[in-house]
Every structure is written in structure tokens, then in C-alpha cells.
């Protein structure tokens, strides 16, 4: 390899987010080619609106993956939070939202206790909690709910309203959370501890860090973010049913992986995940434009994620 090629590879490895952004642009160009005139301000606004819930859901996932774990309960938590928010709204909008967020905190806390204190494998713990959450939600919906839950107006505005015609309201919330996460991960002690714990739990313990506190807090934050994502999603689709966010489980993991966060922990960033979430949303838009049936769409979606992840692993030389 020539020196220039080596420099290029290094540049790509260090600035992998540039590659992702290039991919995002390429996908947008592809859409414009398929259907000239499709890429306009309205389209961008739409993409951002649908990417926001996924981006927020993937935010919690990013935090957990950075510590070397995985949270397979995020989608169930999001669904439960949205459903409980909507079903409690008749007693007051604030009560509904607080109840929804509480679901996230409580489930996250349980996950954290299992993973951090009892040392249960994150995959099993969150999988089992996901079962508990969706099972409880089924019971709750059949035993306690008599009317169809309705999404309050303020949440509908949050999820699908726009400012100045094009800027989605949810973008503000997403941007705020993103800023807090990006700055928090890089600039605060807690953020750096997440990377340290994910890289080598033993070493951080020997260095005097109480790893279990970090993990406990982290899973709780992830639960809270999942709940927020669920509530925003309920606003976007203006409905809350028992399987609202379940389709977002794979995309939440895929966005993190495509965004360059190592599934083994210790490295990654939320900015990568943001681009990952955008890529997945645009990809969905491409598949919708192609006008194929749902089955083909699913197959293509899975195949493209495999190809993306493979190419990414190859280019960056990561395992």
C-alpha cells in the first residue's frame, strides 16, 4: 500500500463518522435518483421526525453497550411507558407522563440491580425483564383498562408537531438529549467511567471505582431514555398499543453497531449512533420508495445491515 493509501485508511479509521455521513448522503442521492424531487425540506423533516424516537432509544442502548452490556428490554420498556402514559392520561397529563417515565426508571433499576449487584449476564437479565414487562403490560391492559388509551395533545405535538413548517418539535428534545450525552460522555467523570468499566471492569475496581454503582446508574438512565423514546414514538404515531415500539429493538442495536460503538464495550460515541439511526431511517425510506412488499423489505433490511456491519468491521479492522 502506498503512503497516501495508508494515510487515507488511518484518516478513515480515526474519523469513521465521516464515512457514515458519506453513506447517509449516498443514500439520499440514491433516493433522489430513484424518484427525482423526493429529497426536499419536507422529506428531511419527515426523516428527522421518524429518526428521533429511534435515536433516543438507541441513546440508552449506546450507554449500555459502551459498558460492555446490551439491553434487550428497551423496546418493551418504550412500549410499556407509552401505553401506561396514554392510559393514565385521563387522570391528568402530568400524571400520565410521570407514570410512563417511572416505568423506565423502575425497569432500568431492576436491570441494573441484576447486572451490577448479582452479576447476571446483561443479555439474560434484560431479556427476562423484557418478558416481565411485556407480560405485566398484557395483564395490566386486560385487567385494569376499560377505555382505549389516548395520546394527549401535548405528546402528539411533541412527537409530530413542527416549528416554522419544517422543524420537528421532537428534534429539539433529541438535540438536547444528544448534547447532554455527547458532552457527558466525553467531559464528565461519569462518562469516562462508562468507557473504563466497559474496557476493563477488573482494572477499574482495582483503581478504586465502585463499578456496580456506575452500572446501576447506567442501566437506570437507559431505562429512562427508553421510556422517553416510547412516549415520543406514541406522539409520532398518535397511538399507543401493546406492540408500539417492539419493531425498534433490532434497529436500536443496529444503530449503535453501525455507529461504530464496539459491542464488546469500551469504545464508541453517541454521535456515531445518531448517524446510525439516521442511516437506518433513510434506508427504510429507500425501501418504502422502492415499493416492494413488506416481506421483501424485511429481507433487504436484514441483508443491508449485515453488509453494512461487515463492511464497517473490515474497513476499520475492528473485531
Amino acid at each position, binding site marked *: 500500500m502506498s503512503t497516501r493509501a495508508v494515510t487515507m485508511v488511518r484518516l478513515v479509521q480515526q474519523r469513521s463518522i465521516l464515512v457514515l455521513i458519506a453513506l447517509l448522503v449516498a443514500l439520499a442521492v440514491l433516493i433522489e435518483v430513484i424518484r427525482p424531487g423526493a429529497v426536499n425540506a419536507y422529506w428531511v423533516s419527515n426523516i428527522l421526525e421518524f429518526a428521533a424516537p429511534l435515536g433516543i432509544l438507541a441513546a440508552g442502548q449506546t450507554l449500555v453497550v459502551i459498558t460492555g452490556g446490551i439491553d434487550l428490554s428497551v423496546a418493551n420498556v418504550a412500549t410499556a411507558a407509552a401505553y401506561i402514559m396514554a392510559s393514565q392520561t385521563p387522570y391528568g397529563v402530568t400524571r400520565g407522563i410521570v407514570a410512563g417515565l417511572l416505568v423506565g426508571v423502575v425497569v432500568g433499576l431492576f436491570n441494573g440491580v441484576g447486572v451490577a449487584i448479582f452479576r447476571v449476564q446483561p443479555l439474560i437479565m434484560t431479556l427476562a425483564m423484557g418478558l*416481565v414487562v411485556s*407480560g405485566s403490560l398484557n395483564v395490566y391492559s386486560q385487567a385494569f383498562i376499560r377505555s382505549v388509551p389516548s395520546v394527549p395533545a401535548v405528546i402528539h405535538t411533541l412527537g409530530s408537531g413542527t416549528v416554522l413548517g419544517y422543524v420537528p418539535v421532537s428534534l429539539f428534545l433529541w438535540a438536547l438529549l444528544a448534547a447532554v450525552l455527547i458532552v457527558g460522555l466525553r467531559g464528565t467523570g461519569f462518562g469516562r467511567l462508562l468507557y473504563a468499566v466497559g474496557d476493563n471492569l477488573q482494572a477499574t475496581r482495582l483503581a478504586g471505582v465502585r463499578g456496580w454503582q456506575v452500572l446501576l446508574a447506567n442501566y437506570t438512565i437507559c431505562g429512562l431514555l427508553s421510556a422517553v423514546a416510547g412516549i415520543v414514538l406514541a406522539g409520532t404515531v398518535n397511538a399507543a398499543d401493546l406492540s408500539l415500539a417492539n419493531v425498534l429493538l433490532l434497529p436500536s442495536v443496529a444503530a449503535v453497531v453501525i455507529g461504530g460503538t464496539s459491542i464488546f464495550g469500551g469504545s464508541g460515541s453517541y454521535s456515531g449512533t445518531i448517524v446510525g439511526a439516521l442511516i437506518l431511517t433513510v434506508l427504510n425510506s429507500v425501501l418504502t420508495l422502492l415499493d416492494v412488499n413488506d416481506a421483501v423489505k424485511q429481507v433487504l433490511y436484514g441483508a443491508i445491515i449485515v453488509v453494512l456491519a461487515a463492511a464497517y468491521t473490515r474497513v476499520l479492522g475492528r473485531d
Partner: protein
Amino acid sequence: MATSVAGQASRPDGIRLGRAVRRFGWTIAVYVLFAILMVITVIVKPDYGPFEWNTLTLAALPLAFAAAAQTVVVLSGGIDLSVGPLMALANVLALRATVGHDLKYSVGASMLVLLAVTLAGALNGAVIVVTRVPDIVITLATSFIWAGLALLILAKPTPGVPLDFQNLAQGSTFTPWIPNALLLLLVIPLVWIPLRRSRAGLAIYAVGSDRNAAFRSGVNLGLSRVLAYAVCGFFAGCGGLAVSMTTGVGSPLSGTLYTLSAVSALVLGGVSLAGGRGGLLGPVAAAYILSLIPAVLIYLGIDPNYGQMIQGVLIVLVVMIGGLGAVLRRA
């Protein structure tokens, strides 16, 4: 599994017993738990008879295969989140292949279905080995592919699995207490025991236990992992056929719940997610436990919707007790 019989025989009985309890303790505990649950069931429902037992074996059959499928991959140090969709793929392929045909044709066709799904499983493994992308990511993505293919093959749930073919699982050829659904489980040991005793099977354990050590001992890592995924595909295919035989319906969504339930059965069955430890006896019993819980709830007159919740709580408790044990030993 690799320890020589001669080495064990020379040890005092006490040590041998201690080792056996340590190695099989969890599995024994799972069977005891199942026995306790059965006793409770009979107390709750005094007229528990062959019919109820047959219903249980029918409900447990697909899950037992799913658990076996997942266990083989986990033993090799991986995980397969596409077990459910692979089962759905087998299920819809079986419907397409057998509808309107006689028994002999159906059995032949289902063998081809098994082959196809085994290859799909092997493809999972090959992609993981070749791309070096973590298994969890690849199988999550391929779960979309298999589920999409299943939807392409059959758009909506369709009945029509030949009755003779269904009776392979639903009847009881010998006595009512040994229904065919129980006998069909024999496929698992028939495939697994020869495999585990072979070099290839040992290699699967070795790769799952310590990849570096396995590599240095001359184990072909890639091939062993692909083999594990292929066996997983085979058992998932059996699971899909079991769904066809026990329900008589081909449904593109029939596999959805099995991915998670299989992991639950595996954990409850005492297989370490870290790989290299455990066998298939525990997970199969765990599949029976998980299938018995909803039945007991119905006998007790409790809303079966609680079933999923109770399953989740049971798993959380089991893994927490297991985790607590590990933490205490370390302290």
C-alpha cells in the same frame, strides 16, 4: 466430558460423588423442579390424565427443539437470535411442501425442509466467521431475513398440514402415557450424543470454553463454529416441523416467541452463556417447565396472561440466585 473414565475410577467415591453433584447438580435441580411442578399440577387438578400429559408434551415439543438449537450455539460460545424465524421458515416451507400430499411424500418433503433450514443455520455461522461481525448483530439481522423469507413463502397463517403427518406427533402409538410427541424428542439425543462424542463435538465445547486454547490445540475454529450453527439450524428446523405437526397450521409468525423462550429454557437449564459448559438435558427439561406453567395457571383459574410475567420472574430469580452464588464464592 473429556475426562477419562480410568482417571475417575481411581478416585475415592466421595470425590467422585462431589464432582458429579457439581457437574450435574443444576440439571438434577431442574428435573426436581419439574417433578415438584408436576406434583403441584396433580394436586391442583386431581383428574390429571393422559390427555393433559399429551397436551403438555405437544406444547413443549417445539420449545424443546428451540432450546436444543440455541444450546448448541451457546456451547460453542455464540448466540443465535434467529432461532424463532428459522423455525417459522421450516414451518411455512413444510406447509407448502406437504399440503395435499400423503404421509410418505410429506415425510420426504420435510426431510428436504430440514436440509434447507440446516443450510440456513450454517449460513448464519459462515457469515459470522467470514465477516467477524459479532454473532449477536449478525443473527439479529438474519432474523429479519428468515422472517421476511417466511412471509414471502406464506403471507398469512394457513391450515392444511396433512392429518397423517400431524398424527406423527399428536397420536400415541404405544401407550397413552408415552405420546408420540415425547418419543419425537429422541431426535435430540440421536443427533447430539454421537456428535458430542466425536472430535467435532468436542471441538464445539473447546471453542466455546476457550477460543485461544482451542486454536492452539489445532481446532479449526471457523469450521467448528459453522458446525454449531448448522446443528442449531437442524434443531430449529425440527422445531418448525414440530409446530406444523402439533398445530396443523403453517404460520409465518409462528416462531416469534421461540427465540426468547429458547434462551429462557437454556438459562433455566443451567447452560452458561459464556459457552463451553452444559448439555442438552437441562434445557429440554426447562422447556417442559416453561410449558407447564401456563397450564398450571389455567388449572388454578388464573388468567394465563400472567404466564409470560411469571416466566420472566422465574428466570430473573434463577439467574440472580446463580449470580449470587458466584459472587459469594468469590468473596
